[in-house]
């Protein structure tokens, strides 16, 4: 465990070097938040609630999911793909460490950088400028657990996308398609309650809502109670286990086709 934590620490230090990038990422996210603010303000018009959600609720939900998206985007898929294509991956394979776990702990370092440099300033601006409100109580504890599970899910999906580079070196298309499927089906672009009923009944059974909808709903939805939280965490945990098994099997298959040109 300690060996892996060093990986996290190292990438955290490296990540802090990119402070200049962080300013622009915060700015970019704030522009997005401004756009969804005005967009949804117009959608609500004079109506107090739509689909049992008030405007402030919908706004804070979307603002937080977009921030979480930025935090979770650690470019794991691009890193793995680059390592496979350049052959650097062999350096990881000869180490007495599990490959997936090493990549996870490295990605976690970068994720923590984004959490401190991007998510926290954004959260402060949301609270001060937009007067965002959220229930404070036991939900914070459940939110923390849910966040970890959501990150694991997001990581494992990116990890599998990266592994496709064993077969094809066309990552841009696969990564873009993955990103969009996850964003739409997880309720990150539009809250899941706004989808037509038939579609929504399907979405709640897919793994994607466990990435953004579950943690942000636990944080912001005042209707939910402890049994709801436990139910959502249970679904998240089931998906983490299922995707973990799938990603291990995929790796076992993919590694067989690896050929590195000399070196």
């Amino acid at each position, binding site marked *: 465990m300690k060996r892996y934590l060093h990986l996290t620490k190292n990438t955290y230090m490296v990540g802090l070097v990119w402070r*200049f*990038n962080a*300013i*622009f*990422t915060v*700015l*970019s996210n704030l*522009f*997005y938040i*401004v*756009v969804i603010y*005005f*967009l949804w*303000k*117009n*959608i609500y*018009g004079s109506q107090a609630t*739509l*689909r049992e959600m008030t405007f402030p609720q919908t706004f804070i939900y979307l603002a937080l999911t977009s921030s979480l998206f930025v935090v979770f985007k650690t470019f794991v898929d691009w890193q793995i793909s680059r390592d496979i294509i350049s052959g650097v991956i062999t350096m990881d394979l000869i180490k007495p460490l599990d490959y997936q776990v090493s990549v996870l702990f490295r990605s976690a370092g970068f994720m923590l950088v984004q959490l401190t440099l991007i998510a926290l300033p954004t959260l402060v601006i949301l609270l001060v400028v937009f007067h965002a409100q959220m229930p404070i109580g036991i939900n914070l504890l459940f939110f923390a657990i849910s966040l970890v599970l959501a990150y694991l899910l997001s990581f494992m999906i990116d990890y599998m996308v990266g592994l496709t580079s064993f077969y*094809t*070196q*066309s990552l*841009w*298309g*696969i*990564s*873009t*398609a993955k990103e*969009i*499927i996850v*964003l*739409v089906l997880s309720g990150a*672009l*539009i809250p899941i309650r*706004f*989808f*037509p009923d038939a579609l929504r009944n399907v979405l709640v059974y897919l793994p994607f809502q466990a990435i953004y909808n579950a943690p942000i709903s636990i944080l912001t939805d005042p209707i939910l109670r402890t049994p709801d939280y436990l139910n959502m965490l249970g679904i998240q945990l089931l998906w983490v286990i299922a995707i973990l098994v799938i990603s291990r099997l995929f790796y076992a298959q993919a590694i067989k086709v690896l050929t590195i040109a000399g070196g």
Partner: protein
Amino acid sequence: MLATLKHYSRIYILIEAQYIKARMQYRADFIISSIGMIFSNVVSVVVFWVLFQTVPLLAGWTFPEILFIYGFYLLAVSPAQIFFDHIWSLRWHLIEGTFIKYYFRPLNMMFYYMSEVFDLKGLAQVIIGISVLVYASIQLHIVWSFWRIISLLVALFGASLVVISLLTIASSAAFWFMNAYPILSLAFKLREYSQYPMTIFGAFFRILFTYLIPIGWIAFYPSQIFLRPSEASWTVYLSPLVGIALFILAYRIWLWGVDGYTGTGS
């Protein structure tokens, strides 16, 4: 002037023919990238569709009208995607010093630099853009007379110059800051917000998106000419001029950067 244009067109076709031949070795990459492109273009249609399940109008605009603006947007961003995709590598060429090579050809440098990449997956975007525009036009009963098609092409020309100019200015920041990736990616994100009606914004952001970061001219203002011409202000007819003026500015900034670049010494 005409002779120069002919000369450059010939060279461009020669360069791209070679480029496409080389890219076609990676046919799977082309197909997968095009699928990724189609996904990223169709997502907005899905989002708008879901929104319009709940509300009939968005800031006074109907679903087909919003789709028309979106189709216009897709076509307006395509030339930048297809012909100017090399801007994303500018920072690498500057940092590693390989940009020096572009000084040694008897060709316009911006032309020569941009001609090195022809983004094939952008063609998928054009197809989606045309499909969305045609679908929206049928829903809106827009009759495409000869003159209306000509004005659409002129409006698209101006709008695509706005996109090209914004991205060129953002990537030219690399001449001064080296790692300009965050600036370019911010400009790229801002470009996406031009698919929304500018009337949704409050006064501050409307002024910002009209005059300072003029993304309003990418899709919303020029599409007024076709959507509700009787309600549109006369200024929307100036959109081609906005594009040309911005491109002149962007080209000046690019030249300024090119003149000041000293290479890496290697």
